[in-house]
């Protein structure tokens, strides 16, 4: 039950893009075409899961025993950056077709706030006890990735319709109308608020 609750909360109720405003840059920039949105989402879910796993292990196995918790920001950003680099090299070597599909989106993920925030979320400690057990951490990271992908892909359909639409007044063209559309989508997601 707790797993379902964590998943639903991360995907719908506290959606990482629409209620926590993370990953807005790719949300506005990359989602102009559905094909790109799919590639970015795939890359993000993959890296998100890996980085949470490594950050979680590194925090509780290395930083906490050494009493260096305050270094987590520096450590995590390095973990994410090197992980992205490593995934890129590994994919290029072993799965060239997948590498081609994800290719340009992988480096972008290094500076994606979703990845860093989820890594910081899963190591949160209240009263000496970790908020997320190992299994819960995996569910939480995966559902945040899915939540991002869901909103990202749905929004890319809207963006495709908005591009080259002659009915939009000139000052609203581009990001302005995209933000308004995102606002309406966020309004729809408010409906999930009472669910849990």
């Amino acid at each position: 039950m707790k797993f379902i609750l964590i998943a639903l909360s991360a995907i719908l109720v506290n959606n990482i893009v629409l209620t926590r405003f993370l990953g807005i840059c790719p949300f506005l920039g990359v989602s102009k075409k559905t094909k790109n949105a799919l590639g970015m989402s795939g890359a993000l879910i993959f890296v998100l899961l890996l980085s949470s796993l490594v950050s979680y292990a590194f925090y509780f196995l290395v930083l906490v025993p050494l009493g260096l918790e305050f270094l987590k920001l520096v450590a995590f950003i390095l973990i994410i950056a090197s992980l992205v680099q490593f995934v890129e090299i590994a994919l290029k070597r072993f799965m060239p077709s997948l590498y081609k599909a994800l290719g340009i989106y992988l480096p972008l993920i290094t500076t994606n706030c979703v990845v860093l925030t989820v890594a910081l979320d899963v190591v949160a400690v209240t009263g000496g006890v970790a908020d997320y057990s190992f299994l819960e951490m995996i569910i939480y990271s995966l559902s945040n990735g899915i939540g991002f992908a869901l909103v990202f892909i749905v929004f890319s359909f809207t963006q495709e319709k908005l591009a080259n639409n002659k009915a939009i007044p000139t000052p609203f063209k581009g990001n302005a109308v995209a933000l308004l559309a995102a606002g309406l989508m966020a309004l729809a997601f408010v409906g999930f608020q009472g669910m849990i």
Partner: protein
Amino acid sequence: MKEKTSLKSIFLDGIIKNNPVFVLFLGMCPVLATTSSFSSALGMGIAVVVVLTMTNIIISLIRKIVPNDIRIPIYIVVIATVVTIVEMFMKAFMADLAATLGVYLSIIVVNCVILGRAEAFASQNNVGRSVIDGLGTGIGFLLALVLIALFREIIGTGAIEFVGLFSGKVLFRLPLFEKYAINIFVGNAGAFIMLGLLIALINMFTSVHEKRLLKLEAKKEEATVKEAK
């Protein structure tokens, strides 16, 4: 040789011509997340100004000893260190503000504005110019945050509240039209909608301004043509 831009224009470029929020659309996450009230936007803006100026100083100082191939990871480590210091300072002296800003304080690390200025400016310019650039871009970011927050707070709550940055207490409160407040603008959807409207408004002003400039130029050309005749 390329002509050196003056300090004043470096400073003003960051605020107006290359405003990180309204013109370049960089670092949008905190723009949406921390502008639900004037005070939190101000706090976030100040944190960004401090981080940006400090990272610009450090990166400008080490720019000649950093190997070109690994410069980005080095910049990221410098930024993460500075953000950690600022975060610790705020947690110690501005506990309420740090609690309101929460994780958005930590993720200044991945704010593209900071890495962008490090890469585009501080890595190629001396310390003095980098400080001015950091201040200019940072203040441009701060002003954009505060502007959005003012609109959202006034329309969303019908009042303005100023909370002391250090004390965390309400210093003054100006009620305007609380009965007619549109709550949605304080919420999530309102953040997107308000930013969209403001960007459209700014697009409109800049296009009108550009048209006027074009007209002026055309008139000047006409005058010179007449003179030549």
